[in-house]
Structures are given as C-alpha cells and as structure tokens.
C-alpha cells in the first residue's frame, strides 16, 4: 500500500498555512498585541517567532519527514514505547479541540447568513447569548439542543469529513488550494474596506502606538511566546502528520520559514483590519478605541455585528465576507486537527482511511453535540482554556525536553534537516529548542499551575471565569487529564503489523 503524499510543494505549504491560520489569527492576535504594548509588542513577538515558533515548526516537520508517520508512529520510531505516548497525548489534545472548534465554525457559518439582513438587531450581545445560543442554564448544565447551532454543526462535520475521506492529495490539498487563496482575497477586501472607513486611522494609531516600557515586563514576553505557540499549530500533532506526507526531497527548513511568516503576515493583516474597524466604531460612538477593543468570541460575535450595523453602506456584504473568512479559516484548521487522529488510528490499528475518518470523525462529531446545547458555551470556554494551557502548552514543553534533553535527538534531526534543506540549521536552532523554549514555556506553565491550584483568579470562586470547583474539575481538569490518560492507554496497545509498510527515512 502506497503511503499518501502531497502532490506539490505549494500544496503542502497551503495545507500547513491553512492549519496555522485559524480563528485565533483574526480574533486573538489583534487584542493580545494591543493589550501588551501595542506596536512595541512586535519586538517580543518577532523574537518569539524566530526563537520558538519557527524552530519548533522545523523540529516537527523534520520528525514527520524522517520517521514518516503520524505523531504516535513518528515518536514510536524515534524512541519506542517510551516516547509513543507523547504522540497519542498530542493526538487526544487535538481530538478535544476538534469537538468544540467545529461548534465555533458553526456559529460563524450561521452569522454569515445572519449578515444579509443583520438579524442580530441592535443589541448584539443579547442576541448572541439569549436568542442565538439560548444560554439560559447555569455553568455545568446542558439544557436542550440549540437547533440553530446543531444544523450548521452537522454541515461543518459533513464538509470536513467529506474532504478527509477524499484523501490527502485529492481532499486536504485540493481544499486548501481553493480555500486559502479565497480566504486571502476575501480578507484583503474586508481590510481594504475597513481602512477606508471614517476613524480607521484612530484604530490603527491605538494598535501600532508603541509603549516601549511594556517590553520590560516578563508578562508581555510570556504573552508573545504563548501567542506564537498557540498560533502556529505546533504541539497539536498536526505538523508532524502533515510533513510525513512530504516526498523524500523536500526543503524542510524553508517550508517552516514560509509557514511561520505566512501565518504572521495574515495576523498582521487581521490586526490592521480589526483595529481599523474598531476605530470606525469608536468614532461613531464618540468613545476611545480602548473602550470598544475586545478579543475572542466577544470581538467576532458581539463587536463586529455592531460595527456592521453602523456601516455607511453594503453592511450585508461586509458582514458576509467577514464571517465567511472566519468560516474558511476555521475549516482549514479543523481538517488538519481531525487528520491527526485519522492518521493515528489508521496506522495503529491497520484500518482503512475511510473507517478511521468515519469512526474518529464520527465520534468527535457526536461529542461536539454537547457544545451545541444551551449550556454549550460554558463547556466550550472551560475545555478551551484547560486543553490549551494544560494540553497544547504542556505537550510542547514535554516534547522539547524529551526530544532535546532526554532522548538527545536534536543533532540527528538537525543532520536530517540540513541534508535535504537549502538553509542549514546553525547553533541557534538547538539553543532555541533546548534552552529558550523550555525556559519560557516552563515559566508560563508554572505561573498557570500556581494560579489554578491556589485559585488566584480575580473572581468570586478564585477559579477561571469564576466557575465552581465541581465544574472546573469535571469540565476542565478532567478533560485535560483525559487527553494524557488516553494517550498512555493507546500507547500500551500493540501496533498493527502493517505499520512497517512505509519505513522511516535514513
């Protein structure tokens, strides 16, 4: 059986960029930058890109290319059972993320339709929480299924699993070759319209105004490293899986540079578009940009609908393009997240791709119904916080420590990357991976653990978002712990005998 392979280099890069560019680029980066020194944030941000983001991308591309397998198979080939669990841990982190990420794409899809007649009305916050999500239950309760979310959710899974069923080249590559250029063109149109609005300069001033005193604060550097880390789809098992489909002669290092810079280019564009639009809104309402600036769900589904309401003309078209770009960015990321467990199950159990997609994707789709209920937003918020902080970030930290320090594979991987790449990796790569990344991620993890264990959040309960101990434990801690427990359990199971059909590369 021939192992799947990308058709072209551009196809692989589009898929990797499609995975990295997601909802976070549009709704997370602009606010993180604004909140951490404005224009001055670019200094720690670029430093983090070059000393953590791109080095880890190169590491994961090299692992996938050399060991030619999904994350579990690649780590198994690298260090046997002692390392395989790490691959499964990353795969189950991806599984959890896919189940709620699909729901957010479903919201964006629904808002694309709402845009035509601005169905959200004048009170966009009330519309989102009370009318659309029907958030009438307490955290921890599910309530009934919200059909307005459930129906687009089914559509999201049909599209994603349909693409994955078509295979790597005819499915993922083809979809990204269409979705990514379309996303860039649509988003450029949104940004061009935003920067020509009244008050756009005011927003751009707020976004780029440098506060150089901020870069002396450790929290700003942690924010920069944290953002780069979450933004690039590293430690998700994605980049290992995607690079395992590369042909033998592939320039790994430059592919990582293109992917990293393309992701940053898109989020810089997003920052310009979002803050230009916020400047317009602040001008219309006669308030400061800081008063309307927001990030996350609030920015996309509360603030942007308000901005669209205040548009001088073509409100529907602007809203349609904005939410369509969110949908496309989300879909290209979701298919990459889902591919991690499809590839893992296929190789471990020797089942066909079709069965892996239908079983793995089908199970994820079923579980995602939980997030399409009346209390779904609370579950989503808590799972997202815990799986990102104690899943993705923890996998990344453990990955660099085990690969570089415990199994001492950095030189071997460097030699493999240098043999096939045009840009040779120097000492900076090993220093970045072995020293800078573990220190920054370790410091970040320590702060997060301390804050959660000692309940130091500025909320009534001291927990994240003021959730109760019971809900925090069952909806957050248990979910993040389950990813590692399933990771260990799956690594105990025997490999199907056919996993050696496609050998690792020398």
């Amino acid at each position: 059986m021939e192992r799947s392979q990308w058709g072209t280099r551009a196809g692989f890069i589009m898929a990797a960029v499609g995975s990295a560019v997601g909802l976070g680029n549009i709704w997370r980066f602009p606010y993180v930058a604004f909140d951490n020194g404005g224009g001055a944030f670019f200094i720690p941000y670029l430093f983090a890109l070059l000393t953590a983001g791109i080095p880890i991308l190169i590491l994961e591309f090299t692992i996938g290319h050399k060991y030619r397998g999904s994350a579990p198979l690649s780590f198994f080939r690298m260090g046997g059972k002692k390392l395989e669990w790490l691959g499964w841990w990353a795969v189950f982190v991806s599984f959890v993320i896919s189940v709620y990420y699909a729901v957010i794409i479903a919201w964006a899809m629904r808002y694309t339709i709402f845009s035509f007649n601005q169905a959200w009305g004048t009170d966009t916050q009330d519309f989102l929480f009370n009318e659309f999500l029907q958030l009438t239950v307490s955290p921890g309760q599910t309530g009934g299924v919200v059909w307005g979310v459930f129906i687009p959710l089914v559509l999201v899974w049909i599209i994603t699993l349909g693409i994955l069923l078509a295979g790597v080249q005819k499915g993922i590559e083809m979809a990204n070759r269409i979705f990514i250029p379309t996303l860039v063109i649509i988003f450029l149109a949104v940004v061009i319209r935003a920067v020509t609005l009244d008050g756009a300069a005011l927003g751009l001033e707020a976004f780029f105004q440098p506060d150089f005193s901020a870069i002396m604060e450790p929290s700003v550097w942690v924010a920069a490293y944290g953002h780069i880390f979450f933004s690039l789809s590293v430690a998700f098992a994605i980049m290992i899986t995607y690079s395992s489909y590369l042909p033998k002669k592939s320039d790994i290092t430059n592919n990582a540079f293109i992917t990293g810079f393309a992701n940053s280019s898109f989020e810089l564009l997003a920052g310009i578009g979002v803050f230009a639009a916020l400047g317009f809104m602040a001008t219309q309402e006669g308030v400061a940009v800081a008063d309307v600036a927001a990030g996350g769900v609030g920015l996309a589904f509360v603030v942007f609908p308000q901005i669209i309401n205040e548009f001088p003309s073509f409100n529907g078209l602007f809203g349609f393009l904005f939410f369509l770009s969110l949908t496309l960015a989300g879909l290209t990321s979701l298919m990459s997240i889902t591919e991690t467990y499809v590839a893992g199950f296929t190789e471990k159990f020797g089942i066909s791709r079709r069965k892996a997609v239908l079983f793995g994707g089908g199970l994820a789709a079923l579980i995602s119904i939980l997030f399409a209920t009346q209390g779904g937003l609370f579950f989503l918020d808590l799972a997202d916080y815990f799986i990102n902080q104690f899943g993705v970030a923890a996998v990344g930290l453990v990955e660099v420590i085990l690969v570089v320090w415990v199994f001492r594979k950095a030189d071997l991987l460097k030699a493999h990357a240098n043999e096939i790449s045009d840009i040779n990796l120097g000492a900076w790569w090993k220093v970045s991976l072995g020293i800078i990344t573990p220190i920054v991620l370790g410091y970040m993890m320590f702060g997060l653990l301390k804050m959660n264990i000692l309940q130091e959040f500025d909320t009534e309960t001291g927990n994240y978002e003021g959730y109760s101990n019971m809900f925090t434990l069952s909806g957050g801690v248990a979910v993040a712990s389950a990813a590692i427990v399933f990771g260990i359990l799956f690594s105990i199971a025997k490999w199907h005998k056919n996993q050696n059909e496609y050998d690792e590369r020398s």
Partner: protein
Amino acid sequence: MSASSILVMVIGMVLVWGGLAASIFHAVNTGRKKRSSNATNNL
C-alpha cells in the same frame, strides 16, 4: 496617526511581509536552479 505609530507599522510590515516574500523568493529561486541543473545533468 503619529510618526512613531507609522514608523512601527512600516517596520512591522517590512519585517513580517518581507520575511514571507524572501522565503518564497528563496524557494522559487532554488527550485528553478535545481530544475536547470537537473536538465544540464540529463544532457
């Protein structure tokens, strides 16, 4: 917009978009060189 904001915006664009352009240019250039070297070797 103030001069410092414009300066930061321009530097940010040059570094990020310039980095992307340079890495794509490098890929296209080396790809072309490899193709022409392969063609020469096949003569």
